[in-house]
């Protein structure tokens, strides 16, 4: 292949990759130089990332990030730590933090991940705190960092709080499949600890509460009386997914709350919560509530129709409800 036909960033990489460098180009021939192996180094990989950031190719940038993460287990830990502690540019901090967290997840001990957590909590620059927080996404950080997330959701920077919420939601779904009680309890504890209603609502509205403890369920019940409609809507959504031992109380609370509630969005979420808690056995309750708010009579009817199908999977019921809603 003629190297002159390669995109600029590919040529740059070929000539400068710290792990696979090209040989010296021969001006007299158009043949590409043979790649030759070199040892990876932290500085070399960081230089590649800095150049990659100028490439304009998101795919190449993702590749370089993965290269650094995959190399993390073989790179000298001390060099990686020093580079991380020295670095101040948020984008580079994020790459190095992801590499340090990757070491822990590959079974190399928790110290490197805790180093990232320390910076996420304590750096003076909010952009660096946010970058370090992002780097902990879809890792085992929840298990090794104590009350880190309860502190991050109270950070002075809204960007950090939002990143922490995203971490909790994505960890809950992608690392724990919504089935690990301690992970859901960490998310609930952080949602309750946050003084930012947007963060509380986002976490509670997007995590699985199926494996939560009785203590976490109690914490969510307390949020049903929040002054903020977003929090109330998220709390009743979360109560819709609680484990069997918590279901009866949740059903009673939601049914009572529906009559007292004034916000249509929260009422809609209550109908969904009741449907999820009871499946077809929720139909009598939904019939009793359908006349309470004329704005939601159609919504209650759609749930009754969907639940009448007898489907046994919540994802299928949700889809059926959406289909019924679109059909009207």
């Amino acid at each position, binding site marked *: 292949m003629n190297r002159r036909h390669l995109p600029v960033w590919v040529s740059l990489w070929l000539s400068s990759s710290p792990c696979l460098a090209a040989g010296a180009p021969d001006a007299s021939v158009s043949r590409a130089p043979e790649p030759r192996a070199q040892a990876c180094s932290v500085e070399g990989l960081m230089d590649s990332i800095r150049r990659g950031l100028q490439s304009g190719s998101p795919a190449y940038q993702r590749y370089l990030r993965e290269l650094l993460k995959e190399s993390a287990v073989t790179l000298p830990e001390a060099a990686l730590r020093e580079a991380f502690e020295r670095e101040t540019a948020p984008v580079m901090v994020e790459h190095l933090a992801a590499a340090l967290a990757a070491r822990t997840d590959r079974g190399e001990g928790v110290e490197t991940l805790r180093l990232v957590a320390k910076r996420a909590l304590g750096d003076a620059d909010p952009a660096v705190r946010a970058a370090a927080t992002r780097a902990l996404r879809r890792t085992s950080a929840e298990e090794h960092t104590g009350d880190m997330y309860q502190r991050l959701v109270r950070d002075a920077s809204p960007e950090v709080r939002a990143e922490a919420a995203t971490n909790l939601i994505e960890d809950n779904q*992608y690392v724990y499949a919504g089935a690990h009680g301690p*992970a859901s309890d960490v998310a609930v504890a952080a949602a309750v600890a946050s003084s930012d209603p947007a963060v509380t609502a986002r976490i509670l509205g997007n995590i699985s509460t199926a494996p939560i403890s009785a203590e976490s369920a109690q914490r969510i019940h307390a949020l049903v009386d929040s002054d903020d409609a977003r929090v109330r809507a998220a709390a009743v959504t979360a109560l819709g997914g609680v484990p069997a031992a918590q279901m009866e109380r949740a059903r009673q609370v939601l049914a009572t709350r529906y009559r007292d509630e004034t916000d249509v969005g929260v009422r*809609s979420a209550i109908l*969904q919560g009741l449907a999820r808690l009871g499946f077809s056995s929720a139909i009598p309750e939904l019939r009793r509530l359908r006349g309470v708010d004329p704005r939601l009579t159609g919504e209650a009817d759609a749930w009754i129709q969907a639940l009448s199908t007898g489907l046994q999977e919540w994802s299928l019921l949700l889809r059926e409800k959406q289909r019924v809603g679109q059909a009207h």
Partner: protein
Amino acid sequence: MRSSKTRLAVLATLAALPTAAVAYTAVAPYPSTVSATTYYSSGTYHGAVDVANSRCNYWGAETGVSATVYWNVTVRTSGVVCNGNGSGNQNEALLNLGSGWSFRQWHWIKTSDSYDRTCNRCQVGNLGGTGNATGPHSHFQKDQYGTKNTSWYSSYTTKGEALDRGELMGYI
């Protein structure tokens, strides 16, 4: 008074409940050869991927998913078993994929690393043959409520293929 925009925003937030499945890359746990896929040589249905290496209790058995995920580890056999000790006695690392889907890794030998853990390609034991096995290997199975799925590997690996540690087996 609360605006309709606020209400719509609340509904939009709730509509974004995470329900979409995510694909993970399944990779070989040690240098190995694919010894069985959908059918055994005998013609009996298998519906999973077996990768084998003769060096029992030598290679570490890494979890075969290239992502940080929570593994539920079940030890049913504590001793070193290389050639089988009866159906149902296999040691298992189980990845819950949601909606009844599971990804299972069987037959490894218990070590000090055999406990529930959240990790990315970490060791949960050593290569072995616990359970229903005629030799040391790892069995990778994706199923929903017990019904096996074969599409995750059928376009990506074949019987007889040599795999290095971390090499692609399929997508779950």
